[in-house]
C-alpha cells in the first residue's frame, strides 16, 4: 500500500512543484496511514533524488533509459501502471500541468482508477473519498467523489504548502529501466529557451497588457521582473499583436499560472485573462482606468499611467536589492 507521486525535474533539478507534490503526498499518506513512493524520470542524480526524502518520500523509483528521454504517453503510462500495481498504490498524484494532463487520464483508464484534476487541498473526506477541484475556469469549485478503490489526483500548482519533514532516514532509491514496448512518438526537433525562468514555475510574474501601448515600453516590466527574480508574461492581445512571444501569453487559452505574486500592468482583467491567473496568491493591478475589472480580483492596486507608475516601482525595487 502506498501513495505514489510523479515528480518532474528541469535540467536535473526538481521543480518546486515536485516538493509541493511530495509534501501533499506525505500529508495524504499520514491520513491513510501509508508511505510515499516517488517516481522520477531521467536526469536527476542521487543527491538530488535523495532530497525528495526531506519532504516525506521513503522510496524513490528512478526511471532511466532511452525509452523515457522524451514523453511518450503510452510508455510512461505503461511504466507508471506497473509501478502502481507493484507498490499497491491507493492514490497516485500528479501536478495539473502538461505532463500530468498527458499521463493521468491514460493511467486512469489503464487502472480503472477515477481521476480528479485541478484539485485544491487535501480530501474533504476519506470515506467517501471527496476532493475539491477547480471548475468553471476558476469561477467555482466542484466537490468530486472518486468511487474506485484506486484514485488519481492532479493538484493545482502552488496550492499546497511545501513542508520539509526531515526524518534523517535516507530514502531507498531504485533505478528501474522498464523494458516494454517502445513508443511511437518520434521527436524530430526541439526548440528550448534554457536558462530563462519557466513562467509556469515562477514565484513572481510581471505581466503587461494592451495598456502598455507599445512593445517599446516593455523595458520597465522586464527590469522589474529581473529585480524581483521573476518571469515576464502578457495578455492575449499583446501576444496576438506580436509584441511579446506566445510563450508569455497567460489566460484561459494560454498558460495557466499560479505564482505567489502576479503584477498586471495595463491589463483590464477580462474573464478569459483572469482564468489564467486566478490561482495567484496575490494579484497587483496597475491601470489608468479606475473601473477596470482587474481591480475586483487584485489585492493591491494603483490607478495611474503605467509609464509614470512603473519607474517609481522599479526604483523602489532597486533600493530593496541594495
Amino acid at each position: 500500500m502506498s501513495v505514489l507521486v510523479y515528480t518532474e525535474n528541469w535540467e536535473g533539478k526538481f521543480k518546486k512543484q515536485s516538493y509541493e507534490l511530495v509534501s501533499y503526498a506525505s500529508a495524504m499518506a499520514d491520513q491513510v496511514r501509508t508511505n510515499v513512493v516517488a517516481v522520477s524520470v531521467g536526469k536527476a542524480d542521487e543527491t538530488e533524488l535523495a532530497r525528495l526524502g526531506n519532504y516525506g518520500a521513503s522510496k524513490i523509483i528512478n526511471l532511466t533509459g532511452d525509452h523515457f528521454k522524451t514523453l511518450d504517453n503510452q510508455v510512461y503510462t505503461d511504466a507508471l501502471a506497473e509501478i502502481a500495481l507493484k507498490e499497491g498504490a491507493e492514490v497516485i498524484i500528479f501536478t495539473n500541468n502538461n505532463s500530468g494532463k498527458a499521463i493521468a487520464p491514460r493511467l486512469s483508464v489503464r487502472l480503472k482508477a477515477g481521476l480528479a484534476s485541478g484539485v485544491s487541498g487535501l480530501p474533504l473526506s476519506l470515506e467517501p473519498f471527496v476532493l475539491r477541484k477547480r471548475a468553471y475556469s476558476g469561477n467555482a469549485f466542484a466537490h468530486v467523489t472518486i468511487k474506485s478503490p484506486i484514485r488519481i489526483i492532479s493538484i493545482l500548482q502552488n496550492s499546497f504548502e511545501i513542508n520539509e519533514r526531515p526524518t534523517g532516514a535516507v530514502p531507498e532509491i531504485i533505478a528501474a529501466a522498464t523494458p516494454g514496448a517502445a513508443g511511437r512518438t518520434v521527436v524530430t526537433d526541439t526548440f528550448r529557451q534554457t536558462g530563462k525562468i519557466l513562467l509556469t514555475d515562477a514565484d513572481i510574474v510581471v505581466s503587461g497588457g494592451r495598456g502598455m501601448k507599445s512593445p517599446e515600453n516593455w523595458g520597465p516590466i522586464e527590469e522589474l521582473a529581473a529585480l524581483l527574480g521573476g518571469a515576464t508574461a502578457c495578455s492575449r492581445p499583446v501576444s496576438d499583436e506580436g509584441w511579446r512571444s506566445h510563450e508569455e501569453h497567460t489566460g484561459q487559452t494560454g498558460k495557466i499560472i499560479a505564482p505567489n505574486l502576479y503584477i498586471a500592468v495595463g491589463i483590464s482583467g477580462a474573464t478569459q485573462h483572469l482564468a489564467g491567473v486566478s490561482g495567484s496568491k496575490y494579484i497587483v493591478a496597475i491601470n489608468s482606468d479606475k473601473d477596470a475589472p482587474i481591480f475586483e480580483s487584485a489585492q493591491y492596486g494603483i490607478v495611474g499611467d503605467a509609464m509614470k507608475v512603473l519607474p517609481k516601482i522599479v526604483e523602489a525595487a532597486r533600493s530593496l536589492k541594495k
Partner: protein
Amino acid sequence: MKILVCISNVPDTTTKIRFTEANTSIDTTGIQWVINPWDELALTRALELKDDAATGVKSVTVAHVGLATSEPTLRKALAIGADDAIRVNADPSDSYFVAAQLAEAVRKEGFDIVFCGIESSDHNNSAVGGMTAEFLGIPSVSAISGIRIENGTAILTRDIDGGKESIRIPAPFVAIVQKGIAKEPRIASMRGIMTARTKPVKLLEPVQTEALTVVSGLEKPSPRAACKFVDAENAGQLIDLLQNEAKVI
C-alpha cells in the same frame, strides 16, 4: 484521411455561474451554450487541413456525448463546416464515461486522427482525450499547439517546458490540442448555416459503462480581500507592502 473532432457543450465563458438550491449543479436558466473553446479551435484546424487538398483529409466529423438539448451546438459545428456529426445519446456523467462512448464511436466508424481540446471550460478535467486514446489502445500526444500534414504524415508541435518539440506519429492517434492550434475560431457563413440543417447527425446508443467519479457538490471560491489602493504619486510604497505586509518579495 478522416478526422474526428470531439466536442463538448459548455456555458458561454461570460456566464455568471449560479448554483441550484442544493448546490449540486449549476442553474442552467438563461445560459447560452457554445462549443467548448478548445474544441472549436480544434475543429477550425481540422477544416483548414481539409481545405488544403494536399493533405489528403477527406472529411471532418464531430462527435459529442449528450442529450437532445445539445443539438443546437452540434448544428453550430456543422454550420462552421463539419461534414457530419455523431451524437451518443447519453448524459455525459463523467470523463471516463464520455471517453468510453467516444472510443466506441471511433471503433465503429474508423478515423485516422481524433482531435480533443485539452480541457473543457466547465469541468476543466483535461481527461477525455487521453482516456479515449487509452480505451482505443492508440497513441495520444498532448499540449499540441500545431499540426500539419506532409506526404500523408502528421507533424505536430508539442509545447514543452520553455519551448516546443516537433513530433511525428503514425495514425491513428489522438491529438489533445491547446492554444495555437488555430489562430481564431472559424465563423459559420450564411451558406454554412443553411446547409447545416441537412447534414447527417448519426445517433448512437451508449455502451454500458459506469462513471468512476461524481460531482457531489459545488462551492464558490472564497471572495478575495478588497483591493488596497496605493497612490500613484507614491507608487514605490507598493514594494514596501509586498515585502512587509504580503511578504511575497
